């Protein structure tokens, strides 16, 4: 059966795309020159943001996309996602530091290592499901971070594994703008790739598996292979993100990939919306940008209110944690669909209002 679908975007879609392209292209200029077409802006007007946060956000977006693909779309809950970041970081250390491979090949090797680890970590899904599977991912997390720890102490030191500045040919990636130029296309590529994969036959089979495993099996879907594939793909992406994360920070320890690191990705996809790829992007953006916005509030709050200033200055880390966790709880109770669900609801209301006589 060949259905013809109108895939040619209409004019307004093109305009939106153009607008987004313009914003994304102008963003590094805005944040490095700290001026909007010649008009100088203060730190506060820029919400205290720098390109460093944007780059870290892009790396986290890779993690959130891969986790949402796995958890939201394939229905496999993983609280061991930090393990795959650690796999990528370790692969980068091995292939770059010890084998001296060039940067693009290192990323490829990290992806392969991630896919392999992910497939192995997905093996318990053949036997257990639900809560037991969640626990097996937790166990995998501890195993992988232990291996990372042993590796770090065997070849490096307590201070962590150092990473050299990556270079592609003669092009050194040493400034935030260059990182942005590397990361942004990668995020767009991964986003479009995952979106396309969800529309493919296997992607639709995966959604069916998430919604009703037995029904999907009855329709001839081999859920076991599909689970392993989803796990492999998701952890390959997370592993590349982990390698990039390690390069970007230029030094990581096993402490960086603790259980809280994995939890933040779950929080991102809950805020963004489970099973929605754009939601994963929004969730990662909120998670990474909100702390610096709160940090930007602290200088002018210090004079006004004693309690508020104490909270913002002395206990800022705790305050950020508290705000995030309460945000997650509020989303869970009142908006289970996350930002994506909220926007669908708003859109429906808008359509109803427009179509009403």
């Amino acid at each position, binding site marked *: 059966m060949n259905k013809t679908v109108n895939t040619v975007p209409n004019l307004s879609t093109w305009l939106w795309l153009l607008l987004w392209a313009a914003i994304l292209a102008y963003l590094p200029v805005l944040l490095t020159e700290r001026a909007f077409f010649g008009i100088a802006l203060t730190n506060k007007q820029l919400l205290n943001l720098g390109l460093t946060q944007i780059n870290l956000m892009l790396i986290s977006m890779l993690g959130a996309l891969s986790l949402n693909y796995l958890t939201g779309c394939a229905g496999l*809950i993983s609280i061991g996602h930090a393990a795959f970041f650690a796999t990528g970081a370790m692969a980068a250390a091995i292939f770059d530091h010890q084998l001296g491979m060039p940067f693009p090949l290192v990323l490829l090797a990290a992806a392969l290592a991630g896919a392999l680890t992910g497939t192995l970590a997905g093996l318990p899904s053949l*036997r*257990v499901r639900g809560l*037991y599977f969640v626990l*097996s991912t937790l166990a995998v997390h501890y*195993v992988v971070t*232990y291996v990372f720890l042993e590796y770090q102490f065997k070849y490096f030191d307590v201070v962590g594994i150092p990473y050299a500045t990556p270079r592609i040919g003669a092009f050194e990636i040493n400034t935030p703008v260059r990182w942005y130029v590397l990361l942004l296309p990668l995020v767009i590529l991964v986003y479009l790739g995952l979106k396309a994969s969800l529309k493919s036959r296997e992607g639709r089979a995966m959604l069916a598996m998430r919604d009703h495993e037995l029904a999907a099996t009855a329709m001839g879907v081999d859920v076991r292979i599909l689970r392993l594939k989803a796990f492999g793909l998701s952890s390959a992406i997370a592993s590349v993100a982990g390698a990039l994360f390690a390069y970007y920070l230029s030094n990581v320890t096993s402490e960086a990939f603790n259980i809280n690191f994995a*939890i933040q990705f*779950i929080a991102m996809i809950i805020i963004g919306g489970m099973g929605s790829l754009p939601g994963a992007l929004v969730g990662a953006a909120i998670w990474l940008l909100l702390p610096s916005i709160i940090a930007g509030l602290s200088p002018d709050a210090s004079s006004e209110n004693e309690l508020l200033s104490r909270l913002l200055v002395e206990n800022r880390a705790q305050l950020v944690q508290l705000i995030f966790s309460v945000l997650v*709880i509020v989303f869970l109770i009142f908006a289970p669909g996350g930002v994506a669900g909220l926007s669908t609801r708003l859109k429906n209301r808008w359509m109803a209002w427009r179509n009403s006589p």
Partner: protein
Amino acid sequence: MFEQVFFSGLALGSIYGLVALGFAVIFKATDVFNFAQGMFVVCGAYFAVTAMSILQLPFPLAIVFIVGAAALLGVLIHMVLIQPLSGRPMLSVIMLTIALSISLRSIIEMVFGPQGRSLTTPLPTGVLMLGSVRISYLHLTAALVSWVCMAGFGLFFKFTSVGLLMRASADNHEAAVVSGVNVNTMNRLAWGIGSTLAAVGGLFLGQLQIASTELEGIGLLALPAVVIGGMQSIPGAIVGGLLVGIIEQMASTYISPKSSDIVIYVLLLLILMVRPWGLFGQRELGRV
């Protein structure tokens, strides 16, 4: 040497068993896999700090304060957070308990400061020599209290009418509702019991080490304990706790201190692969 390690593992394991028992009570009653159980342990330790150091209550009153505050905390959490989420997918509920534990930790660190507090109670300190084995009185008291609590709750579930109602509503929610059991009250009670047991564990752990949010990691060892013992089984939780305590001490003495976590989690992985329903649990059957 071996006996020494074995006994300190047994003493620690009794506390884990107590925390794991609280965990299992909550899980059995409400199907919530409570990642905040470790934070309940921390809350217990800080309730103890509040009662002993800040309010300077006499010890028996302090115990009443700790138990009351912990039970209230559990009941409130069930009313405000868990009940609205009943019937939601598993990840939502898991993430809720994780978020809850993060917010509890940040509140504790805001109120008490990020550094730990030392906790002193009039419980006996000192060392008892049994042959060549040194057992501290604190370990012994902790183990004894844990055993009394475990036995007490075992009898409570087995022989009292409230315990019977709780078991009924855990076993079959609908049937219990139809028979006129107020399932919500039973669930609240389960949360209260679960957090109280964790808080008692926190009282001892806070004194054996120091009252700080780091105790959460120790409290979270209840998780593998419960799975190893079998999630649906109350005696399983206790045995699992003891096993985890002994294995932890053995691994950190005979292998390396860093390896204690990994040994426990590898065991967890093995159990999940071979016998996912745990040592004492019952096999779950899938239904179409």
